[in-house]
Structures are given as C-alpha cells and as structure tokens.
C-alpha cells in the first residue's frame, strides 16, 4: 500500500510539471522574441535610415541582413515551434520541383505553441509585410527609386514566409473543414503560383 501511495505522488509531480508547462502563457519565449525581433528592427532601421548612416549601401546591407536572418528563423525555427507548421521545397529524382506544406496535428504533440504564441506568430507574420507595402507606396510616390529596390527586396522576403505559412494552415484545416473555401480552393489548384516556380 505504501508503494501505491508513492506511485501516486510521483504521478502528481509529473502531472504538475506537465500542467504547468501546458498552462504557461508562452512556452517558447526565445522563439517568440526572435520571431518579432528581426522584423521590427528592420522596419525601425528603414524608418531611421537617415540617422543610422548617410551611406545608402550600408543601410541596404543592414536591412537585407536583418530580413535574411528573419526569413531563415521564421521558416526554419519559429514556425515549427510556435504553430507547428513547416514548408519547404524538394527536388525529386526526375528533377521536378515539389513544394511541401506540413501542419502538425495538435493532439500528437503538446509542445506546440499556446494561443498567445500563435497570435504573436500570425500578427507578426501579417502586419510586417503590410507595413513594407506601405513603404513601397511612400517611396514610389516620393520618387526615391533606390529605396524602392530595397523595399521590393524586403517585401519579397516577407511575403514568401507569409504565403508559405498560409498554405500550411490551409493544409492543416483541411482535415476539419473539408469543404471550406480556403482549403479546397488552394488544394484543388495546389501550385497556383508554385506551378510556375
């Protein structure tokens, strides 16, 4: 009988840890921080470009470097950790290019991000490209053409991740709503852009 009570205590301890982990507001603080860090710093650097350096080239290199780090970390790390989505491209033996979008089912792993993290992820993913699109129009209408090239490069880096993760989300939701518009629409024409790419 003593053994039974001991076993029950051990289970409680393990359960408590699990419960604490599950009820934590943010399970991956480092990933959440870095998800937003590079994007926001790049936007701030663009806005404060006059104060950072007079040389256009160094500003360009700084922003592109920040956005490259952001692209890599969002694609390879934070998407997996915060929302359990992943996308990549693979070339099979025939040389055909195949885009793969993967969504993890929530029941299989409880290390996936919480709701707060998911909100951080999607807000960061959507708002920053919108801001860069605003910069596109401001630089276009103020005829600062060399800044336009920077903005176009930034938009392409940011929108690539956004599009990839939206496709992953459509794949994930396909199991629940088989005839939801987004899921079916994107899946029936799976390579709507990527068929060309």
């Amino acid at each position, binding site marked *: 009988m003593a053994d039974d009570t001991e076993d029950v205590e051990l289970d409680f301890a393990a359960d408590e840890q699990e419960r604490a982990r599950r009820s934590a507001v943010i399970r991956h603080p*480092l990933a959440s921080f870095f998800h937003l860090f590079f994007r926001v710093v790049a936007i701030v650097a663009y806005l404060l470009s006059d104060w950072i350096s007079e040389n256009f080239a160094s500003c360009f290199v700084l922003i592109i470097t920040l956005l*490259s780090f952001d692209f890599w970390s969002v694609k390879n790390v934070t998407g997996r*950790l915060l929302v359990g989505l992943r996308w990549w*491209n693979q070339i099979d033996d025939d*040389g055909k290019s195949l885009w793969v979008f993967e969504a993890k089912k929530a029941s299989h*792993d409880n290390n996936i991000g919480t709701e707060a993290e998911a909100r951080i992820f999607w807000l960061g993913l959507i708002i920053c490209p919108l801001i860069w699109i605003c910069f596109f129009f401001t630089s276009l209408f103020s005829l600062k053409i060399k800044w336009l*090239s920077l903005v176009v490069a930034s938009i392409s880096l940011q929108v690539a991740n956004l599009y990839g993760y939206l496709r992953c989300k459509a794949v994930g939701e396909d199991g629940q709503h088989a005839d939801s518009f987004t899921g079916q629409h994107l899946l029936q024409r799976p390579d709507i852009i990527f068929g060309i790419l």
Partner: protein
Amino acid sequence: MADEANRQFAGLSDVSISEDIPVEGDISVPMGSSSSNRQRGGEDEFSTLDEPVKETILRDLRAVGSKFIHVLYPKRSSVLLRDWDLWGPLLLCVTLALLLQGGAADSEDQGGPQFAEVFVIVWFGSIIITLNSKLLGGTISFFQSLCVLGYCIMPLTAAMAVCRIVLVGGSGTVSFTVRLVVVTASFGWSTFASTAFLADNQPAGRKSLVVYPVFLFYFVIGWMVLTFSPSQ
C-alpha cells in the same frame, strides 16, 4: 511442357499483391528541415532551443559552401540543382555591389553602378533569363535556375576583387590589360559554368536560344567590373 512452365512459376502462385502497397523511402532534404523526420520525431522534440538551431545553421552553411566549390569545378553535378538555395547568390550580389562602391560612381552626378543598380541588374536579369528558359520549354524550375545563375557570378566577383587590388597599383595601360584579361577569363568561366547546368535541360536546337541571354547577362556584369574606376 506445360508442367515445366508450371514448375518454373510455381512459387509465384502464392504471391498476392495487396491493394495498398506501403511506399517507403527517404527523401533527404538538407534545406534546414528533413521530410523523414516525421517518423523519427527528431527535430520536433528537443530540449534546448540552441542545439538543433546550431545544427541547422551549420548544415545550411555547409550546403552553401559546397555549392561554391562546385562552381569552381563546373562539371555536371546535382548539387547546385537538387539542393538549391538562394543564400549564396544573395551573398555574392551584396559582395559585388559593395566592391563596386567607392568608385567615381559614389557622387550622384557621375555615371556608374550605384549600389541598388547592381542588385536590380543581377536579380532582374536572373529572373528574365529564367523566364526565357522556361518559356522555351526548359525543365529546370524557377528557383533552381536562379540558384545556378547566382552562384555562377562567383568568378566575376573574384575578378572584381582582383581588379580592385590591381587598381591600387595604378590605372595605366598595363593595369587595364591585366584587368581585361582577368575579366574576360572570369566572364568565360561564368558563362561556361552556368550553361553546363542550364543548357542540358533544353531540347536540342534550342540551346543557343537559352545561352545567349546568359552570355549577355554576364557580359553586362563583366562590363561593370571592367569599367570600374576608382575615385580620384
């Protein structure tokens, strides 16, 4: 006779092919995430954040490095095509643009490649060449083509570095001749390396239609490299 035939194939009568044959195999994609990980559950369960991120970074860096080496010896290999990435082209483009700075081009009224122009020429040019080859019915994919064209800028970037070193010594006829030789050699190398990858995917008779935009592309970049003159 029939008995013999039956005996030969006797063992096969037990074989039944089930409807759902499990498809097995491994597609290893060293692009930062592996598709076979789902079975292992490898990358999804890790204790610290740093460890697998470091592995991923190292793997990507090694992939980029191996592609640079493959451009040095351009034989038909699958490395540039199979595991494409655009980090190398981005790095090369930035390096080339930075090397083309500091010339007589820095002041706004002089002609000469500004930083953003190099970027636009390289990337827009690559996109146009890729569209051209795809419209001609090439089998190579969009990003694979961008990858090859970008990595094959490496000889011209090296030539730019050599030119800048030569220009430190002076900008007379001798230095111009040296620079001309270097730039021509690297231009030929770039064109040869990229056509080794790109032209193979084309049907015969179309190869020159694909090659000439590549020729023009590297010619323009070589021209920018050759006509670079340092500010007084």
